[in-house]
């Protein structure tokens, strides 16, 4: 009897704890929407999705920030995806085991470096480098893209590598038995077979790039205007919130929550896409 009560009790405790993590998601979501939606309603969509961000004049246009987020994410993808993919192919197919033993923890360590350190490194190294050799201030889309490209590498490499390693050995053997070379086998059989895992890796990596705030604030210049080149400073959705939340109040504050809604929606779409793609793979 006592045993049974104990059993039931521990079941309830675990359920409550599990519930708390899910309810955190619900609470945060509700909070962001409750705070942000009234501003979008009162300012109107044309204001909110306009070009002009001047909270003191009641202008809350976040389009420059959307462009900013899109451009640094795209830049991070252009630089980070090929490097990450090549690295994962190397790790899965070519690296001798002693090298894997060094590389894998090293790449995991890359994920453990605090983002402020990345920002600091970008600010003292990448930014002056760009300023010196390419002109401008250096605080730019390019600088943020470089920093983010490095930050998304661990995600892209580890997930792509796992999806390559998880392929049945028979695919590789079958292709080699047809007289295909190792590289032909990778390109024409293994990569297509691991496609869904690799796409998921890229999406999750880009999700990280979109959500990153601290490192980006330090190297991006943060001007809320439309950029004309990759050497121009911009502001992203996350940095907009990070920079102004400290002193914002009233409508201004609500506008930052509304920015959060847009960010939230983008990240949700990416994560759901990634989950959908990986689930489809399992079904097959």
């Amino acid at each position: 009897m006592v045993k049974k009560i104990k059993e039931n009790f521990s079941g309830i405790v675990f359920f409550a704890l599990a519930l708390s993590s899910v309810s955190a998601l619900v609470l945060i979501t509700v909070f962001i929407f409750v705070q942000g939606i009234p501003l979008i309603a009162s300012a109107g969509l044309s204001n909110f999705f306009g070009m002009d961000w001047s909270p003191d004049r009641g202008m809350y246009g976040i389009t420059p920030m959307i462009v900013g987020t899109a451009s640094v994410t795209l830049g991070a993808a252009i630089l980070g995806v090929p490097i990450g993919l090549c690295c994962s192919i190397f790790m899965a197919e070519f690296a001798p085991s002693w090298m894997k033993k060094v590389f894998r923890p090293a790449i995991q360590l890359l994920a453990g470096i605090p983002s402020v350190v990345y920002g600091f490194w970008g600010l003292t190294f990448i930014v002056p480098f760009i300023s010196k050799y390419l002109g401008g201030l250096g605080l730019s889309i390019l600088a943020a893209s470089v920093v983010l490209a490095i930050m998304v590498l661990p995600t892209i490499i580890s997930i792509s590598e796992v999806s390559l390693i998880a392929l049945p050995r028979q695919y590789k053997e079958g292709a080699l038995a047809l007289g295909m070379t190792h590289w032909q086998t990778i390109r024409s059989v293994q990569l297509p077979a691991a496609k869904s895992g690799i796409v998921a890796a890229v999406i999750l990596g880009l999700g990280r790039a979109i959500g990153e705030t601290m490192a980006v604030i330090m190297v991006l210049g943060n001007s809320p205007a439309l950029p004309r080149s990759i050497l121009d400073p911009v502001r992203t959705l996350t940095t907009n919130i990070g920079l102004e939340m400290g002193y914002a109040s009233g409508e201004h504050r609500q506008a930052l929550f509304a920015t959060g809604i847009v960010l939230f929606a983008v990240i949700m779409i990416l994560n759901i896409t990634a989950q959908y793609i990986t689930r489809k793979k399992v079904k097959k």
Partner: protein
Amino acid sequence: MKKSNKVKLKTKDINLFYGSVHALRDVNMDIPSCSITAIIGPSGCGKSSLLRLFNRMNDLIPIARVEGDVLLDSTSIYDKNTDVAEIRKKIGLVFQKPNVFPMSIKENIMIGPKHHGIRNRAALDEITERCLEQVSLWGEVKDILGKSALELPAGQQQRLCIARALAVDPEVILFDESCSALDPESTMKIEELMLTLAKKYTILIVTHNMEQAVRISDMSAFLMIDENKTGRLVEFSRTTEMFSNPQDKRTEDYITGRFG
């Protein structure tokens, strides 16, 4: 059964080591062209290892080491200047379980020839039809060539794998227990197919199934491990001879079902 005296594959004192394990010792065989040779023997005697030596699939195992040589016609397979991909193109391998690639039926056939330099659409279409026809699959799949090969039943998948091997125009085809995962009906179809293919190709099969060896093979090789757990070729002769009048006591014991 047809007779052929021309030797297609010749093993010269082949020895295989996995690390410090001596897996096969001094195997010498002359495999006649355009025939079916069955490699039989109890589990773990090195049948599959021997079969995979012929197209150097053992290269994939880092600890595997080979001494001796195999000659394809007069070309050395284990010479260090040999192009392994070229050898594997000439000596195809069909695996135990069907291992179609996760792509369409047609792409499964075309992937080999494409990588050997055939780019012409019409030529690739012709190869697809001819190879599927050769394995009697064309009639069954000609309307669903774009469908994923993974959706086919296992028997058809295995025939597709054979068609895929044929598409790169091999001279020898190795079958590594390729019927063991199939139902009797599919097995029968593949046996018939092997008999037809043996008119043009040299075929080697590994099989656990003694009846299968008797039904389709011209030559049989009986392998067994010795007291040191090293695989040895005990007897290599015409199948009819081996099964009617085995020369070695061990062969007799095995084929009459006393062990194995």
